[in-house]
């Protein structure tokens, strides 16, 4: 199944308010609510093209209704699931 194949891959999610979250895909459900582990938050760069430092969030759940687009990192193999906890 496709979804299982994507587990633990790096995933990038753009949200309705313009922020982008990058983390490893660990969980989803029928309503497209997605949980990313070791997640970082990136702001949309300002007019001058400068971007602020990403902010570390840890484990984050993105409700399906706020998801604009989902990207998966195809180049890298899904890393082995970490043995530690996700947070």
């Amino acid at each position, binding site marked *: 199944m496709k979804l*299982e194949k994507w587990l633990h891959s790096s995933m990038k999610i753009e949200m309705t308010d313009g922020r982008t979250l990058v983390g490893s895909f660990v969980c989803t459900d029928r309503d497209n609510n997605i949980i990313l582990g070791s997640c970082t938050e990136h702001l949309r760069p300002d007019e001058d093209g400068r971007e602020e*430092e990403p902010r570390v969030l840890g484990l984050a759940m993105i409700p399906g209704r706020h998801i604009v687009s989902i990207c998966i990192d195809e180049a890298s193999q899904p890393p082995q699931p970490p043995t530690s906890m996700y947070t």
Partner: protein
Amino acid sequence: MAASSTDTSLERNDFTPSISGARPTTSGINFQLSTMPPRPEVTYNWINITSEFFHATKDLQLGELLHDDIFGLFEAMSAIEMMDPKMDAGMMCNRGKKVLNFDQAVKAGALKLNNLTMEELVGIMDSMLACLVTWLEGHSAAQTILTCLYLHKPLSIEDRALRAFSIQTLKLIAIINNIVHSAGVFEEEDFQPALYGYGVCSEVSEVRAGGMMREVEEELQRAVKATRNRQGEPWDPKMQKQHEDAVALFSRIRFMRLFYAALAAIMRREQVSIPEAERCLVSCNELVCIMQNTIGRGLRPKQPKDEEGNKVDYPVIMGFEPLVNQRLLPPTFPRYTRLRTRKEAMNYLEEMVGRLRHITKITHCTTFHTALEFIEHFSESRPCVLSRSLAQVLYLGGDKLWGGQGMAEALREAARSFICPPALLPKAPAKDYVDSFFNRCVRPFEQLIQTCGHNRARQRDKVAHLLEEFAMLQDEADKVDAYLHNVLLKSDQPRPHLAYLGTWVLYHTLRLMIKYLLTGFTLELYAVHEYHYVYWYLYEFVYVWLVSALSRADAMLLEQDGYDTNKGGKSGRSSKNKNRNKKKHRPYGKEITYNQALQHLCGGYYKAMLGLREAGKVKLPLQEFDSEQVRYEHRFLPFSVVMTPPPVHYDQFLSMTDLSNFPQPVSPATLYHDARNHFFKARSLLETIHAHNTEVQQLLKVVKTNFVVMKLLEGGHKADDPTRPQFDFTTHPCFPIIKI
């Protein structure tokens, strides 16, 4: 905090992709973190799978989670929810207007660096003070004082008054952090020291900062004088306004400088610096009054318009950006900090100046016992973290106590004046042995002082730990006493040495036990159906032990007096005179009477509670969900480590309080009668204490009222009324007035 430690562990995890400096949406670009030391570069090859993903999830059942074996619902529950206003701190920054930092605000013309009006200056300073006060009340600096953009780059400010004030504010933040840190009596709910990487303007020395303030002050003083009303001439309204503005600004600048100077002087801990600090604080007190009266001269924020959509629940003026640090906060953090109003802040500062003036009086405490009592009393007024910390630093700070004495030396004197152990007399043998005992005492007694510096709720926990320390110390004291007893009996002037040091330590242990049990009332921890065994324990054991420890100390001191007098001229004239004065009354007479009164007071409550229980007027927990034994053991758990006095177990409690032990059958009325007698005894004991302080007055009011209530109950008043009695703690926090 847990959240921040999680963050650092995450950063070490090479699982985390590191991205910065480029748009994450562009694929195939090498990202690297600019500010961090070298980290493995991560290359992404993003492939859009949005529709594919949405399609795939349709195969999942309702409520089914797709995850691997080690990720479960439990982990899922701990995720923070994005776009939820309560959990997602980053969300607010993306609403409405752009959040500008210092440079951006200057560029956009939203931040004036020069030519500020008087109205703006006073308004900005008052807002800064309001932020400062909110920070001191335990909120994060990032959400309070550091929301002021002027404090981010004070050296860029051209206006001299505002620059000096901003730098002085940063210096004040630094010294407050230093004070609170060195005292170490704060918890996360009291104080947040983190400054999130903002500097405190270390380019400017403290002396220079004070100098800048003074220059501005003198300038303003000239302005104040120049615009004064001349006698016999009408005051030009324009001149009058200038005058009043200058006074308002002058008072703020001067207050800030003197307040800092007072803190710095106290921190120097020198004999001359305390009067200096007191002088500064007296002036601060006058200045706060002027500031309070001139709040209206400051710029006020416009009422926020709803359509602006900036979800901050307080309006702001130029120079303040509530969300500027939002992204510096850990993911889970209180979203809003309600700032104090300017008026509240001024009142807070006024009270704080008063508290600081009070704590400088600790320098008048010359003995350990008086200092301990001072700090305990001060703690009862629930002081702020800064004044609590300053009291600690002033007394305990450094290697020596205030006055230059070492702790071991102070304790030796405390023990000598408490019970006068023969081993502490000049030329007593086994000096090394005694010395090492007092060195051993240093740590627990330091902790005792520190405990009283913590906030009231935390003190109870700390007392429980201290009891362990004191139990060990008690053991040691008993051994030292036994050893000294043997040595002294064999010396030239044979004297017994029984339980001298032991009694001194016991006295402190008992006071800790009382503190532990009574703070349960002030913190409202006990249910009404628990009152009877708490008061019973105090009445049957703790106060009895305390009275006996004090009586023993009393007897020992008198005996020592007699010993000195018999020795005749040997002890010298001065001490002889002192002893003669002492002999007139028992040294602990008052304290013994006071504690006996409290013992009877507790006895009264115990009997009253039993009576009320028998009469069915106390709400009891449902039997199947309750175990009185568990509650009892939990309430007295910290006492189980103490050997003297030995802990009283639940079965002992049951057998001692079993009503069937009484010779005659017991009715509620007989219990009320007993309670009445106890209250009566407490009253007559309290009335013999001549120095009527407020606490004795409060207690007298309590016992008198309870006496009458017991009399009414005994007479059958409201016997058939099923309403339960009320316990009113407003008169005294530990001893309620019973209301029927």
